[in-house]
């Protein structure tokens, strides 16, 4: 049960990070890191550093990664990575709450299959 809770926290942080990134990039107007002009790269990196929302999103993303590391360190690889699929259930709920995305039968079926699969993995 702890794994599910920790996965929930990690997925929530990652989701929030993506939402903030999307908002910040819409505000800044896109950041091109991969380009030939080194001054252009510097200018774009400066855009990131200057933007508090974007910085906050990266902080959340790092926090989520550290939580993932915790899971990888504590549980078997053959268990923790596939169980990570549960994040689709959280995505479904968050998508509905924050973006009013449609929840259809197909999505519910998919999430149910993921939950049953995770339940099988939890069996000792």
């Amino acid at each position, binding site marked *: 049960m702890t794994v599910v809770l920790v996965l929930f926290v990690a997925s929530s942080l990652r989701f929030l990070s993506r939402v903030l990134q999307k908002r910040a990039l819409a505000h800044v107007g896109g950041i091109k890191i991969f380009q030939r002009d080194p001054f252009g790269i510097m200018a774009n990196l400066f855009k990131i550093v200057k933007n508090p929302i974007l910085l906050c999103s990266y902080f959340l993303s790092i926090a989520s990664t550290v939580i993932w*590391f915790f899971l990888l*360190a504590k549980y078997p690889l053959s268990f923790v990575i*596939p169980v990570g*699929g549960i994040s689709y259930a959280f995505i479904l709920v968050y998508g509905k709450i924050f973006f009013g995305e449609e929840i259809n039968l197909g999505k519910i079926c*998919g999430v149910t299959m993921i939950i*049953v699969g*995770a339940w*099988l*993995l939890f069996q000792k």
Partner: protein
Amino acid sequence: MPQKSDPEQTGHLIGQTRGIAIAFFCSVIVSLAQALIKYGFLRDPIYFDFQSFWDVPGIVWQILTNPFVLLGYSIAGVSSIAFLEALHLTQFGVSNTVLRLNYMFSFFLGILLFGEPFRFDHFAGVILIFSGVVVFTLHSRKNEQGF
């Protein structure tokens, strides 16, 4: 909608195939990176002992000084850049589903590299999770993340 000409269709097909191949490559690489990170934690155990907020920098420092974890994370980073190319060539649903094959790769890597026990019900669980991801993606809104 105007019909695409033959060379245009062939070009589109080649692009799609290339995108799927890149996503498959990323999936394998991500699984190997995860295995490397796991190996790093087994070799130099990190104690995630969160008693207070002030324990966090120490834990982050332990992670940053673990060469296998750093290498694995860097490889995963490179793979995420390559995945952008896959996203450019195919729809999100296709490339994301191919990427999720890493659930299966990691399952087998755990068994082969770290001697984790194989069980058929666990294997069935992994297959079910992957199938669930495919079904979920198939029913996601088109142009948003579906096929």
